[in-house]
């Protein structure tokens, strides 16, 4: 029974997270074009171990709100990290 309740709780939390994610970030954020223009800088900061989200908060907010830009950010960061190895 306890496991069932935990399972329900996890589903509920997942659903709430999905619901809130649909409504996007509240903070000021860049648009897709500005995000692309600055993405290389953001990624190099991350690759260097710097808190890029703190340095470039509006770009970080956009990545939380835009699935396409988030995907491209993840792939560029992974590529830069692999090349750096």
């Amino acid at each position: 029974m306890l496991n069932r309740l935990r399972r329900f709780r996890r589903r509920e939390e997942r659903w709430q997270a999905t619901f809130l994610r649909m409504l996007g970030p509240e903070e000021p954020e860049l648009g897709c074009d500005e995000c692309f223009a600055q993405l290389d800088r953001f990624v190099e900061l991350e690759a260097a171990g710097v808190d890029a989200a703190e340095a470039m908060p509006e770009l970080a907010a956009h990545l939380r709100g835009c699935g396409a830009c988030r995907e491209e950010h993840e792939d560029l960061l992974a590529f830069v990290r692999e090349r750096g190895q």
Partner: protein
Amino acid sequence: MTGREARAWPLPPVAVPAAEPEPWPGPRPLLDPDSRAWIAALSGTGATREQAVARLHALLVRAARFQLSRRASRLRLRGESVADLATEAADDALVSVLAHLHDFRGASRFTTWASKFAILEASVVLRRRVWKEREVTLDGDAFFEATPALADEEKREHRELLESLRVAVAEVLSDRQREVFVAVALNGVPIDLVADRLGATRGAVYKMLHDARRKLRTHLELPGGAATL
């Protein structure tokens, strides 16, 4: 051998801008030595430039192939390979990089800056392929009718929340904002595809999504969602 493979580098893959690039506008930015060498070679003429363009194309192919391989599980390739799509994306990226060379200000290494063009092109190619045979639905009915497996009390809360959202989407948003919000935020249609469908740019569609979200948050008296996750 496909058409793409037949015209693989070193043959010019696409219309590369003229061998005599325009003079650099204004003072050149301060660059790291490697980036400076790239810019010097690509801004030059003759064999030096040709070799630099070939090296750049090879880098872009690697970046595009990396992206496509990373997301390969979403690909349902028919008669095409990751290599073909990577070459296609790299060709387009090469044109963009050379056309935007003067925009490079040295905020990152040149190779990182150039690679993002290939990642972008590969991502767009991939999303279009994945959605080629899927229905791009701008209707939110399926989303609002879905009920996750929850306990009874949670189901009631879930329905109430969903109903609030459904009413807000119907009453607060403009027709275009509703289309964009339902497609991107509810149905998960990639923003590129929605932009194609509406004949708009990705940036313009995101602006519509941003405005729609702000209206809904205000109406539902909710904070920004992603910020709290």
